[in-house]
């Protein structure tokens, strides 16, 4: 779905006129802005790690075909099944075939899943599907879009969140619910879905080309359940998530968490193949307590082209920490209402251009102040404002 600049402005202005939206956003921003700076001060090694991640990402972008091939080989070596989906619809079809129409399916928050429209697609094919990240579940319940990369429901006040949970899940909440009440109710509601789930779908923060290890970082603990309980675990991730080695993939998770403002992260998961045991006669059996099958769907959807496009290639370094969003003066007023149908903020404009074409990003770029605050905070030094200004050319010259 592409939006014209005029349509985006209409949405943005609706957001500006919505006092509840503005209030929730104001509260979230005041808690999140500048958060990474404390983390960098108290853990000085993070800046050095960020530089290493930047260099490693460059290495992969420069040799993207080689690294995709290498990653797929490594995945096969650890008994995972790799796929390369060229387009969003191909990615959806692959996942549907793996799921085999059988639900329920549990998902942990993945922006690439949003990008390819996975949840809605599986649902339209009759698969019962549940988001398990609390914020993302709220987004699913309101049929909306994530309003921040790592904090998808920041646009909802506690009252609005409670209304959604009550009305859509039929869950009982006290008359004046606190965030704690909502968390507890959702925990109970989802527990049974986790246990019954036939498949779990996660994203990936990083995938190590040398080992085929998938690295995931989280705080809620839902990823552990999504990736650990069902028989099948499906990873869906952009090829930009590939890093050369496992050490740097782990570094990426640390840097991502710190710049997202949550450090140390509560959990980091490393998943290299399906669960297995060789406890009886040293005979390797796949499918122990965790999944028996691990499928990794690598998504291109414009990324290979972007790697060769000087206007977009730097954006492939993005580690989706959402820091540029928290710091952007426009985003602080609009959240992801500005940035594209899926992504939002400064990084969103560019991801929209990568995944939907430069023209789709170009109209959005016109709302950028070009103030460069995003550039100043990006952990991997993406010159966001310069790339966005370059996109304005595509708007202006048409």
């Amino acid at each position, binding site marked *: 779905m592409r939006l014209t*600049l*005029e349509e985006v*402005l*209409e949405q*943005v*202005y609706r957001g*500006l006129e919505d006092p509840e939206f503005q209030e929730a956003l104001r509260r979230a921003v005041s808690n999140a802005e*500048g958060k990474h700076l404390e983390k960098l001060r108290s853990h000085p090694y993070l800046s050095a790690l960020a530089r290493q991640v930047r260099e490693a990402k460059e290495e992969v972008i420069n040799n993207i075909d080689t690294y995709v091939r290498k990653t797929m080989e490594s995945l096969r070596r650890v008994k995972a099944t790799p796929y390369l989906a060229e387009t969003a619809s191909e990615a959806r079809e692959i996942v549907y075939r793996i799921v085999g129409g059988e639900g329920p399916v549990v998902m942990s928050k993945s922006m690439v899943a949003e990008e390819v429209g996975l949840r809605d697609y599986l649902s339209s094919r009759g698969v019962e599907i549940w988001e398990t990240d609390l914020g993302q579940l709220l987004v699913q319940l309101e049929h909306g879009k994530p309003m921040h990369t790592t904090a998808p429901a920041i646009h909802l006040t506690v009252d609005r969140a409670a209304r959604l949970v009550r009305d859509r899940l039929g869950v009982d909440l006290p008359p004046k619910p606190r965030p704690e009440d909502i968390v507890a109710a959702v925990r109970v509601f989802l527990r049974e879905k986790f246990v019954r789930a036939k498949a779990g779908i996660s994203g990936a923060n990083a995938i190590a080309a040398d080992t085929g290890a998938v690295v995931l970082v989280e705080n809620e603990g839902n990823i552990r359940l999504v990736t650990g309980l069902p028989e099948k675990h499906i990873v869906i991730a952009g090829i930009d998530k590939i890093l050369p080695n496992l050490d740097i993939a782990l570094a990426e998770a640390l840097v991502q968490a710190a710049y997202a403002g949550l450090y140390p992260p509560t959990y980091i998961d490393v998943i290299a193949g399906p669960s297995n045991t060789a406890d009886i006669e040293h005979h390797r059996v796949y499918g122990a307590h965790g999944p028996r099958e691990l499928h990794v769907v690598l998504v291109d959807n414009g990324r290979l082209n972007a790697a060769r496009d000087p206007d977009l290639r730097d954006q492939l370094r993005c580690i989706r920490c959402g820091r540029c969003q928290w*710091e952007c*003066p*426009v985003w*602080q*007023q*609009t959240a992801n209402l500005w940035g594209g149908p899926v992504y939002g903020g400064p990084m969103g404009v560019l991801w929209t251009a990568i995944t939907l074409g430069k023209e789709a990003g*170009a*109209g959005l*770029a*016109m*709302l*950028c*102040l*070009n*103030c*460069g*605050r995003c*550039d*100043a*905070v990006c952990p991997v030094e993406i010159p966001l404002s310069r790339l966005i*200004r*370059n*996109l*304005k*050319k*595509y*708007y*202006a*010259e*048409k």
Partner: protein
Amino acid sequence: MLDVRSILSILASNIKATGLPVPAPREALYSWSEGLSIPKDGDTLLYTGGLYQLLPYIEVYSSQLAKLEDKRSGGLLLRAAGRFSSLSRIAGAIVRPSKREVEESKRILQSIVRLLDAAGVRVAYRREVDGYSGVLLYDMGLDDDFKKHFAQVARSLAQTGARTIVTVDPHTTHVLRSVARRLGLLPELEVKTYLELLAENIDNINFKKGRAGTAAIHDSCLYARRENVIAQPRLLLERAGYQILEPRRSGRLTYCCGGPIESIAPKLSSRIALARIGELADTGAERIATMCPICLANLKRASRTAGGPPVVDLSLLLAERLEA
């Protein structure tokens, strides 16, 4: 809802026709220098880039656009005007800037010359060379129009024989020093802001003794993040006797005034300006110091709306502290 492509085509056709982004008489650019005895030739040439002088006109122009934004017919009118490149003529008849704003922009430029003089920096000025840098074209992605326009600017600057160009605002500074250089459009000319020159020669400046009150400093995004002009305004204000109060977001992480998207999304722009003026006012400062004409106009308007302290250009704050 504004039709953005129309705004772009109006902007481009204005510049193509008159060299200026908005309908304004050419003397608006240099009338500030009348009566001043500034030499025409010299190694160091003042190039104002016209932003301070044009801002009163841009203000009126964009408030007219903002009004159109709320009218259903507005988009149509704009689209038609854009198509026939005729809004410049329509608007030419109706852009009457506020006299006070025009006078203020003159005082700012006159103060800058006085300050440079007090610092012992001798600048030359040529009204026929001074003009608009084309920065808006570049900012809006109209690269071809920008390159064409700027080629003329670069040619006339080179013909003066000056070796250093002195700029007075962050946008012109950035275009001359970084953008034009990156695009290979400017010959080997040194570009310095008047703030850098003043700071380099600060010991020559004779400021009044005693305290001058408090000033909250609003860093320009381009100065702070692209041109490394952060320390200079602070040094100058301090030497002039001001107590500097830093807002929550300052220096390299300074916060935009919202100005750059004012003509595209006025409501969004003004929300950003209000957020910024709020934190500047929170410092409790008597006055707010800006160093960019766009910040000045935008924050002044926001401060009026929010009942905040006066917003004053840095040059005026410094000049009022010069010994007579």
